[in-house]
């Protein structure tokens, strides 16, 4: 029972982590709390649905409930959502930056953008739920007492691959270094010849791509609905703040801890309070360690 909850927590945590990375990028590099980020998860999931609607989820491969078409849909959704994130920046946030707006103005603009993005999803795809595939799956016993669906194992594995790839990119690529440099000091980055707007564009595209992956993973386990991203918004922020906004590892570990807290809370309090756990985590962090686990005191 405990082992099963741990496994479920890690899976939820991995998905939250992918979304929380984008929130951390927002806080560090774009310097504002992007409350529209959760809508990118929703959009990513629905954009993949468009492709799946045309191509089908594919013949189930190995034990999975889908085939290569679903994987292609993920990739396409990641690209398109990256583009969407950049488009939202062009239409809204870049204008505000150029006007030298206060970061709070960007936060409020993000709330507005989130509302519009969420309701456009309802407008196009309706209020109801959607599924990528209706294949039934049988859980496999991966460890004694721990059963996971093959799709869930796939998601966990891919999430780990994505995080490792992102880590390598941020550590070794020159654009990755420029992003970290920007996070520490935009003015010094400019003095080093870094084009700030270029880095911002990349940040949006990466955040959007990661959000789309998280969204598709949410949609696979098991369904899509217009509030799927929004309902994770607090968990994403809790993860990002818990980890400390200073590092990629922070957002990932923060995500895992929030996922675990949600799934393990059922042992202490009723499962009805599960969704309240991110709030509790957020409050505890802000009380006892406002800089986050890996953040530095400023």
């Amino acid at each position: 029972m405990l082992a099963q909850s741990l496994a479920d927590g890690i899976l939820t945590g991995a998905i939250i982590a992918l979304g929380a990375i984008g929130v951390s990028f927002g806080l560090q590099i774009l310097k504002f709390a992007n409350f529209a980020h959760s809508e990118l998860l929703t959009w990513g999931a629905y954009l993949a649905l468009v492709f799946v609607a045309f191509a089908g989820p594919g013949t189930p491969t190995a034990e999975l409930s889908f085939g290569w078409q679903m994987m292609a849909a993920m990739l396409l959704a990641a690209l398109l959502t990256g583009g969407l994130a950049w488009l939202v920046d062009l239409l809204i946030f870049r204008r505000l930056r150029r006007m030298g707006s206060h970061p709070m103005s960007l936060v409020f603009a993000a709330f507005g953008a989130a509302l519009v993005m969420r309701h456009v999803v309802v407008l196009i795809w309706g209020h109801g739920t959607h599924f990528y595939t209706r294949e039934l799956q049988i859980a496999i016993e991966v460890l004694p007492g721990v059963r996971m669906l093959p799709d869930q194992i796939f998601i966990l594995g891919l999430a780990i691959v994505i995080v490792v790839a992102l880590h390598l990119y941020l550590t070794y690529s020159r654009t990755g270094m420029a992003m970290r440099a920007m996070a520490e000091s935009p003015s010094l980055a400019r003095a080093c010849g870094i084009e700030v707007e270029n880095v911002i564009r990349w940040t949006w595209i990466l955040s959007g791509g990661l959000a789309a992956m998280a969204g598709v993973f949410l949609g696979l386990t098991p369904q899509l609905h217009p509030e799927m991203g929004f309902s994770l918004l607090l968990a994403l922020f809790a993860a990002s703040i818990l980890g400390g906004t200073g590092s990629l590892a922070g957002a990932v570990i923060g995500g895992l801890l929030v996922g675990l807290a949600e799934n393990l809370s059922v042992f202490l309090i009723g499962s009805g309070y599960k969704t309240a756990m991110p709030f509790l985590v957020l409050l505890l962090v802000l009380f006892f360690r406002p800089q986050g686990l890996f953040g530095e005191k400023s």
Partner: protein
Amino acid sequence: MSEPILIARDIVAGYAPDLPIVHGVSADIAPGEVVTIIGPNGAGKSTFVKALVGLLPISGGRVTLGGRDITGRPAHALVADGIAFVPQTANIFASLTIHENLVVGGHTVRGDLRSRLERSYAMFPELAAKRNQRARVLSGGQRQMLAIGRALMTNPSVVVLDEPTAGLAPKVVGEVFVELRRLATSGVAVLMVEQNARAALAISDRGCVLAEGRNRAGGRAADLLADTVLAEAFLGGRKAH
């Protein structure tokens, strides 16, 4: 003395376009020269150099680099043009390693950075020993060396420094000045703003005195140091190290 490479004429600049702090300052510098800008607090020294490197808007006047008009070009473009800037505070990325700081310094350079990295490490062996450590572990003097090494990654023709010795121990101040002199000897034009006016002028070819956002005096550094009236007004109080 060779022809000036960087020429600034009647520069008007400030943080907001309608509130200039610098009211028509001129300066020039030739390859191989060290030129120091001195003056009391609030004279507009920092504003002037930040405008030169594109970090503040220029609302009047003209800047040329090697005869080409570069007025109003953005900071990142000027780095690619060959003007490097070392800000006064927070001039390194503390959260990045020393190696990463240098790589970011070479951001505008296409292609391999290896030979440039090796040159920086050869110049500052202390940095080479710590290349994979975060820059926050460095001492004040080492930070300044890293900031200079970072600025040199683009092979700049002009290096502009805003108070490179601010907050450094007296012994380290001398080391930084020696390094800057050495840099000029290699053919780079070194333009700096300094509060350690006497010590800076002692290693400079020329000086430029600003007051209230205007040129107040200028000329050979040795002459400025010998000028008793000027010394009384601008160099007093502060003793040479």
